[in-house]
């Protein structure tokens, strides 16, 4: 139908030109995602993806549950698809293309089903189709019932070869799709997007595709980048880092949601793309033989990533201790979970004040919430002349009037005086 005619019938129709490059890109993306189900993925340009699944169906729990999963994930990526299955790839593609959602297991059943298909599935030239119509051939069955020599002479060998391949009479080798080393996929918006929530919705489609790609590679990523393309500004990059490699689409979505929830968009977004490189091998996980009671233990790394995505990377950390006499330097901020040595110190408080607090002095005795009673000490710590952090302190354990135990010191350098440095909580 011509665009003008269509607009006359439906004036509010929105017309978009076909974009062959984008269609190919999308098809390659779907193929990359589909490679998680089988190594045998072939492309049928411009709109078909063929999967050799007879070897994988058992793994995915049979045809029904396999189809359900494929349909659901395709839906999450924003695609709708017609499915069909047959012993030969061409027959499967024709059935799907003709919209017949049939699954044929035996070659013998193929012929009557194919015979009903319209000749358009052959995808031959328009003149040929017109000629078929002129001689009253509408279905493949009618075409096949004509004498072969006559058909070959009039329409060329091509329709007959196609039919023979579909029926499995001729071999039909395919080049299998080879996964790229890096993942990259993009979505362009028909209208500019200004809300983070809408971005997340679109990004979710790309994340499902990424998860399929990673499953096909038996790997995971530790970092992925969401690029927001603007009209007249440089693209905004949102990098999501993970503590451990993962390919969990739900987890990726959650991290991105936390990040986008407090992200100020610098301008309307025209398109988004998701990129991930450095795929590292990630073994599958085994389920326990016996089901454990209660909530399953969560993944520690996931918790850290979730906290960091909202609070910032520096807000979540581990601790380590060093063989160093100055108390404030005997401790360091590390990545959570770092292994370390435990040097032996004397009595130390559970809490260390990040900045020693000067104490009032009444008659040469330190006061903190009233006069302090010295219980143990002094422990002389004099160290650090070589790095400029020179200290000379006498540490005491002291008791406050509230019977709290605190760790205080008398400074011998500089202005001197008493300081509160820790609390024995």
């Amino acid at each position, binding site marked *: 139908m011509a665009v003008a005619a269509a607009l006359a019938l439906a004036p509010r129709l929105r017309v978009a030109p076909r974009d062959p490059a984008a269609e190919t890109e999308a098809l390659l993306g779907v193929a990359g995602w589909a490679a998680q189900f089988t190594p045998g993925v072939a492309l049928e340009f411009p709109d078909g993806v063929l999967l050799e699944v007879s070897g994988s169906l058992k793994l995915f729990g049979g045809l029904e549950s396999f189809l359900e999963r494929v349909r659901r994930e395709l839906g999450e990526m924003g695609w709708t698809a017609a499915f069909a299955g047959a012993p030969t790839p061409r027959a499967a593609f024709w059935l799907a293309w003709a919209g017949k959602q049939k699954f044929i297991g035996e070659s013998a059943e193929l012929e009557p089903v194919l015979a009903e298909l319209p000749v358009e599935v052959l995808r031959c030239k328009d003149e040929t189709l017109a000629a078929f119509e002129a001689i009253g051939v509408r279905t493949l069955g009618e075409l096949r019932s004509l004498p072969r020599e006559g058909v070959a002479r009039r329409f060329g060998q091509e329709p007959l070869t196609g039919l023979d391949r579909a029926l499995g009479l001729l071999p039909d080798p395919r080049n299998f799709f080879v996964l790229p080393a890096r993942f990259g996929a993009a979505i362009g918006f028909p209208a500019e997007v200004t809300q983070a929530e809408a971005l997340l919705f679109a990004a979710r489609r790309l994340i499902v595709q990424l998860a399929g790609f990673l499953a096909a590679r038996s790997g995971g990523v530790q970092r992925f980048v969401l690029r927001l393309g603007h009209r007249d500004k440089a693209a905004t990059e949102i990098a999501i880092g993970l503590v451990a490699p993962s390919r969990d689409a739900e987890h990726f979505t959650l991290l991105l949601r936390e990040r986008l929830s407090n992200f100020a968009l610098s301008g309307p977004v025209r398109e988004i793309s998701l990129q991930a490189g450095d795929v590292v091998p990630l073994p599958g996980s085994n389920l326990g033989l016996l089901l454990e009671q209660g909530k399953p233990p969560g993944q520690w790394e996931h*918790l850290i990533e979730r906290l960091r995505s909202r609070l910032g990377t520096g807000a979540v950390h581990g*601790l380590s201790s060093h063989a160093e006499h100055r108390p404030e330097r005997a401790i360091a901020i590390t990545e959570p979970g770092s292994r370390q040595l435990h040097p032996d110190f004397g009595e130390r408080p559970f809490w260390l004040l990040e900045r020693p607090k000067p104490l009032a002095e009444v008659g040469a005795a330190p006061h903190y919430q009233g006069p302090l009673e010295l219980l*143990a000490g002094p422990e002389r710590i004099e160290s650090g002349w070589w790095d400029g952090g020179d200290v000379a302190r006498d540490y005491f*354990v002291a008791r406050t009037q509230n019977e*709290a135990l605190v760790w205080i010191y008398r400074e011998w350098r500089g202005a001197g005086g008493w300081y509160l440095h*820790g609390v024995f909580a």
Partner: protein
Amino acid sequence: MAGMPFSFAALLDRPDIWRGDSLSRAGTPAIPCGFPGLDAELPGGGWPAGALTEILPAHEGIGELRLLGPALAGLSQRGLRLAWIAPPHLPYAPALAAAGIDIANLVIVRTASSKETLWATEQALVSNACGAVLAWPRGAKYAELRRLQIAAEGGRAPAFLFRGQEAAGESSPAALRIALDTSDGGLAVHVLKRRGAPLAQPILLPAMPPAVRSKNHHVDRHPAAPAAARDFSARLVHA
């Protein structure tokens, strides 16, 4: 109903039923707290797992962390992670290591607001990825604590909330509420609320750092505990 054996005792043995006059028994998962005197008074014999425990010290520094020391040491040595959310000061790694806590299993979370503290605590509990969650919320409301209690349920982690003692007067959904006070140089543990009958008498624990305790003999102590500590029990009657 003839022929159908029915035993009232069997009914009462169900783990999800507890009688008001006794502690709830088997079925309550708990982490032994390492002080036999206290374990005996806690339902399940320790800190309740998958539930909130509120710790309300009279003052900072009277032994509120030492009370958790043995439990935290045991959990961390089993490789379980301990999340410390919005602690008031820097947890001092050498002291924690000396108390037997494997500091490789610590994670410290710093927050900028009480809203973030509650959010991070909830995330840590929901994830069920921690051996214990310690949090220092400021001014949490009942509804917010209720959220945390629900997040903790079904998990394996005990959740410790450290709050000021002024919170003792407010109602709380926590499974266990403990007020701490000092008494004769030791720690007096008042069980304000537990799953079972309330406990009138405080439990006295010798919670002092060892080095200080040995020195303690040589130091003159004030003869009487401060007045504030003594009328503490009276203040808690309505809690």
